[in-house]
């Protein structure tokens, strides 16, 4: 193991990889800072490029982009009360008020310190637990693997938020798309509709670029037209918000973050980092849940609880630390069990697949040096994120007012270039476009896209495991309940489902009573 760690770290420290991580952090921060654009969209776009890089450089760049994006989202939340990413919504609650009080730089730097702390804690937990979890999972047979995938899908369906029925539909759509192409056991073609191009399977690049980038651009277009409609009546776009609500003038020196101010929030930093890490390690939950749970916890534990929402520094710390911790710990189930917990993890799953590396318990055993190289890249990305963004806090104002409309055609052209560049197949451009439109329609009817992507990614593993179980047990499904680990996964999944149903019913009753 020690040799793998040393080898991985030395493989990461090449000028090219360092440069790509730096570029990833800058691009992620840039995309995260512009409301309407997300780092997930950027990662989907960059994904085909990783094919031409070595796995450590490519995947470290994607993760660096995600880390940059997590922090970038807080910039526009603090400066304009317009969260660049949904996860930064909790940051805006106090961050924007602090900015209004005349402390934009102090607040951004506090968010940065929080983001880095959460990130580092998440990284360390990932580094120390992924190997352990993987060694346990190595003992899993097809029955346990099938139950594990079912457990992960159940978590994604019942605890992602919104409607359970719509989450289920979204996962089923993803699973169905995964069945297009050759049958994994008999290689008989399925759903190819007489097209040779579909006899393999749907290109993961075309699917993620369509679902996560193209549909996002269509959604941003819709937002642009909604704002334009409103602006005709009430003048309400970002630059006008900024000009309309002037901040108080505070002496420049007072707008600097001091060490004393950081140590004053150390408890909140620690607690929120743990909350974010735990939530991130569970499939289905994500940075949005983590930031709001952590914010609520900090509010109840803090002696300044009443000041939350009125410009409390601890509020910014709680939200930012937790959402950034998720960014690292969501890779725990991916790298140790082969289960992506959210869209970004699914994209990293795709990047590994592109390189012929199958995420799962064998990953550390067979490609240990690559995994440790990626871990080293993650740590370097955290350091770059802190250093660059600390000094760049003065130019954020300019980044965040870039109109997303200018970038929309750029992204749409890049979507085509990325999809075609990867496969050199015109057919994939059409597939990407179809998924882009499908993604936009699903979003409009409130069916989440994360479930589709994760269903697609986990579909082959689920089918293969179930078919193996059926062969080994002569069609007896009882084996799922006689093997202890498999039974444990199914029982937990059942408990989580019932718990969530009860919670939904209670909420419904309260709504009715109100």
């Amino acid at each position, binding site marked *: 193991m020690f040799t793998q760690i040393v080898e991985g770290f030395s493989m990461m420290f090449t000028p090219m990889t360092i440069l790509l991580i730096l570029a990833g952090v800058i691009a992620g921060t840039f995309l995260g800072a512009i409301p309407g654009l997300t780092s997930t969209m950027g990662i989907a776009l960059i994904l085909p490029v990783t094919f031409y890089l070595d796995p450590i450089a490519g995947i470290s760049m994607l993760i660096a982009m995600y880390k940059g994006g997590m922090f970038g989202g807080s910039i526009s939340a603090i400066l304009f009360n317009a969260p660049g990413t949904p996860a930064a919504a909790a940051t805006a609650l106090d961050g924007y008020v602090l900015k209004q009080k005349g402390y934009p730089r102090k607040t951004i730097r506090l968010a940065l310190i929080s983001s880095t702390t959460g990130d580092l804690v998440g990284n360390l937990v990932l580094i120390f637990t992924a190997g352990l979890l993987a060694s346990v999972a190595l003992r899993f047979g097809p029955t346990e693997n099938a139950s594990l995938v079912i457990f992960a899908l159940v978590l994604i369906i019942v605890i992602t938020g919104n409607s359970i029925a719509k989450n289920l539909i979204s996962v089923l759509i993803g699973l169905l798309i995964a069945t297009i192409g050759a049958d994994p056991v008999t290689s008989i073609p399925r759903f190819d509709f007489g097209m040779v191009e579909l006899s393999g399977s749907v290109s993961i690049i075309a699917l993620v670029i369509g679902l996560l980038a193209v549909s996002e651009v*269509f959604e941003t277009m819709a937002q642009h037209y909604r704002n334009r409609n409103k602006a005709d009546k009430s003048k309400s776009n970002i630059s006008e918000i900024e000009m309309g609500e002037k901040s108080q003038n505070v002496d420049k020196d007072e707008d600097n973050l001091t060490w004393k101010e950081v140590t004053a929030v150390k408890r909140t930093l620690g607690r929120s980092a743990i909350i974010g890490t735990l939530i991130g390690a569970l499939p289905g939950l994500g940075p949005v849940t983590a930031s709001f749970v952590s914010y609520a916890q900090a509010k109840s534990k803090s002696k300044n609880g009443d000041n939350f929402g009125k410009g409390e520094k601890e509020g910014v710390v709680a939200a930012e630390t937790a959402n950034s911790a998720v960014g690292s710990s969501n890779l725990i189930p991916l790298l140790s069990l082969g289960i992506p917990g959210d869209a970004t993890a699914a994209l990293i799953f795709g990047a590994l697949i592109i390189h012929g590396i199958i995420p799962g318990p064998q990953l550390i055993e067979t490609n240990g040096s690559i995994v440790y190289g990626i871990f080293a890249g993650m740590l370097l990305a955290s350091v770059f994120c802190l250093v660059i963004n600390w000094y760049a806090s003065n130019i954020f104002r300019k980044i965040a007012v870039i109109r997303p409309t200018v970038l929309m055609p750029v992204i*749409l*052209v890049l979507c085509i270039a990325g999809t075609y560049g990867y496969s050199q197949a015109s057919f994939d451009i059409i597939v990407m476009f179809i998924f882009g439109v499908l993604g936009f329609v699903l979003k409009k009817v409130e069916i989440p896209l994360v479930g589709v992507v994760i269903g697609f990614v986990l579909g082959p593993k689920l089918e293969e495991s179930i078919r193996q179980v059926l062969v080994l047990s002569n069609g007896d499904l009882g084996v799922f309940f006689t093997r202890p680990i498999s039974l444990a996964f199914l029982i937990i999944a059942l408990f989580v489902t019932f718990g969530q149903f009860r919670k939904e019913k209670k909420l419904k009753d309260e709504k009715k009573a109100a």
Partner: protein
Amino acid sequence: MNNNYFKIKDSYIYGLVVLLGLLLLIIVIPMQIQSGEPRLMPYLYAAGLLIVGLYKFISFLFNKESEYLKFNKTVIKYVGLNILIYTAYIFLIQHIGFFIMSIIFIVALLRVLGEGWKITIILSVVLPASIYLLFTQILALYFPSGILF
């Protein structure tokens, strides 16, 4: 309700899911997949869609309290236009070529989105040229060339 909006009942969406499930179970799977084991998982997933759709659709019928999704007609019209422009771009790229089509696409989209001529001209030339050079000169990949380049 403002005339500029149209509403869709949530129950209709579940109705569509039921139709999709039925279509898969009765027509698509039997026609597209050889009988036997390869049909197992697609049948399970399609049945899942049918059951969840049917359950929600029937419960809406009994409770008569379906939620509504609200759409702004003007927004949908403009987004639809932008999607049409993108569709034309994607289908014409095979015949006209990446470089020329990208310029036309960026000009058309930026103008529809309300951007000025200055930024439109700069972006429409700089972006396709950079991508074209990056792919053909550095990565040695080729775009569909069509009749032009």
